[in-house]
């Protein structure tokens, strides 16, 4: 989620993100293996692959920071801690609590929770010679917090992933249901619709994924024309349980032809009590 704010709050967000990253990097207990190869929405590209979090795995995304520089020197910024859990085979659920530091127009800022986001992701099949991997994702954004939306929104996304020897291609299409936001309501970052393609190049011996993508989206307000965006980024596995990602995006059309930057970390772990083994420590 992104909200308009000043340079001051953008810097503050950046410092929060760095602090969270440092804390995560300092964590000594690492239980399980993250997966740089399978991408998540916004980490670093908006276009994601068709695979869910592994069964029984938790993926804690603690420093999902985004900063967008718009025209006329204004900034949008957001910090969205999330946790995903592989609840069923090829299925994960995710909860995110976006934090926003928003410019209220008179030079001061206000901060708060900007909604509660629940997601469910289901991978329909594993990629084979004849079929791409297919996935479905549902996002529900609840009106929670001072900076949250004015009503509940639900979005549905379809995803396809095809792997070639040289690269991997992902196609995403998303639609958000519900009426337009009321006049004067907080801005909702969910698009009315979104369609895009991304290409990954994997460097397996370095555990590094390079990605680039293109997408078009229309805002929920519908009055505006769709904007076209390009983005690029990487995912890098620093240890079996820790992952870094970063990305850069640019809006090519529309009134706000700005640049955006994302940075995130992921820590993976599991809870033994949720696994099908009874005895032991």
């Amino acid at each position: 989620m992104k909200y308009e704010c000043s340079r001051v709050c953008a810097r503050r967000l950046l410092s929060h993100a760095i602090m969270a990253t440092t804390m995560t990097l300092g964590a000594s207990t690492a239980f399980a293996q993250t997966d740089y190869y399978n991408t998540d929405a916004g980490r670093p590209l908006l276009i994601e692959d068709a695979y869910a979090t592994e069964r029984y795995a938790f993926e804690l995304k603690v420093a999902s920071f985004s900063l967008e520089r718009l025209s006329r020197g204004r900034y949008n910024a957001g910090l969205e801690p999330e946790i995903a859990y592989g609840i069923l085979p090829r299925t994960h659920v995710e909860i995110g609590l976006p934090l926003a530091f928003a410019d209220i127009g008179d030079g001061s800022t206000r901060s708060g929770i900007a909604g509660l986001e629940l997601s469910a992701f289901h991978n329909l099949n594993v990629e084979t010679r004849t079929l791409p991997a297919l996935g479905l994702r549902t996002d529900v954004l609840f009106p929670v917090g001072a900076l949250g939306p004015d009503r509940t929104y639900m979005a549905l996304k379809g995803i396809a992933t095809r792997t070639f020897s040289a690269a991997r291609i992902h196609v995403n299409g998303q639609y958000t249901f519900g009426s337009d936001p009321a006049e004067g309501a907080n801005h909702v970052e969910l698009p009315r619709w979104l369609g895009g393609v991304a290409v990954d190049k994997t460097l397996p011996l370095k555990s590094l994924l390079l990605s680039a993508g293109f997408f078009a989206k229309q805002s929920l307000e519908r009055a505006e024309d769709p904007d076209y965006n390009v983005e690029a980024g990487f995912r890098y596995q620093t240890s079996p349980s820790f992952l870094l990602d970063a990305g850069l995006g640019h809006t090519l059309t529309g009134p706000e032809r700005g640049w955006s930057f994302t940075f995130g970390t992921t820590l993976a772990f599991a809870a033994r009590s949720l696994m099908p083994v009874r005895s032991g420590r």
Partner: protein
Amino acid sequence: MRYVTGTLGRILMLSAGVIALLAVDSRSAAAQWSTTYEQFYLPGSFNWEFRRSYPAADKLFNAFDYGHAILYERLYTQPNAPASVLEEKEYDFITRKLLRNPPRVPLEEAAIEVQYAKLAPEAKMMFEWAHLLHRQIYDVWADERLNVAEKDRLVGDLLSYYRSRKDLAFSTVPKTMDLMEGQYYATAFRERYPKFNGLIWAYHWLQVGLYEPLIRGESSAERQTGVVAAVARFWQMLESPPDGMPVIMPMTAAISPAFAERYPDAAIIFDNLHSMHDVISDILASPKVPRNRKRAEILKAAGRYRDDTSFVMTRAEARRWISCPIFRPRLWLAVPSTPEITARMLPRQLQHPPPRRLLTCMARHPRLPSRRHTRMAIRRRPGRRWPGWTTAQCTRKPSRLTR
């Protein structure tokens, strides 16, 4: 849908076109629908302990992942390529570069064996699940905070967790060699690629061979020494390929008898795992298996390795078979549990035993203690003897070292 017009319409059409491109061949789509899935391994305080305590050996296993993956990818995508692609180009890359500078973290094999992963994702997942078991048992036995009873209990938990995935778990019933050697495609791989086959068997030798020093070592230092010696022995196998390599598939009970006795189920699982590795190599390499039958044959073999009924023998029969003398002179049966055996396991040039401290240090070194490094380290301490060791002890039965 008044918004499905203009730009949106064009985007949807574009997306549909891309999806159509992605779905390459829908004629046999029904036969290719696969719903296998990944699952996390069992969490515990022992996680990643082998990585922390034995980094050099742990990194080697990351490199092994590459060797397995590139083998299947080359066999499947370049069936008519000259043997030198695997026997020279890939082999040289693996042994001269990759194994000497192994990756930091376990590899994503799907990014290496791209086409093979799409051919038989179910079989790929079976291997990954069993490799997880391998690594987790190393972790348990590398954790010096656990006593033996706790280690046994945890290994029991690991086996229980492993077998909870019926769709992936190898059988705990021994399979006869007919399953590997009696099929119409059998031995196709090793006949055409003896050197790479030897490399894979050397991998498998080390994968099971490391259990023995971990289990039989009575202290942390002994375990460290034993693991270094086993790794050194692995390197020795690669010195004169394929002559120095195992000539039959390493069997767990022969390589790691203490481990096989303690955890017979795990030993059989690993034998079945390694055997299926060879079978898939044969299926992919054999011209007798048409390209459009590769997947079916792989899945058929995978099913046989999972079930408890086909191609089975009793455990007593398996023990008798493995004790057959043919295994003994050709495999390196003992992995060290005592300084004497440790010395026997080292390369011949290193049979003057190095100080335990040096070996321990080497095991902790982030770079692999290659034979060259080891030799250099020993050379810096000429004439050094470890108290209690004699030259006779160190050179006892050298034929087992060098065949």
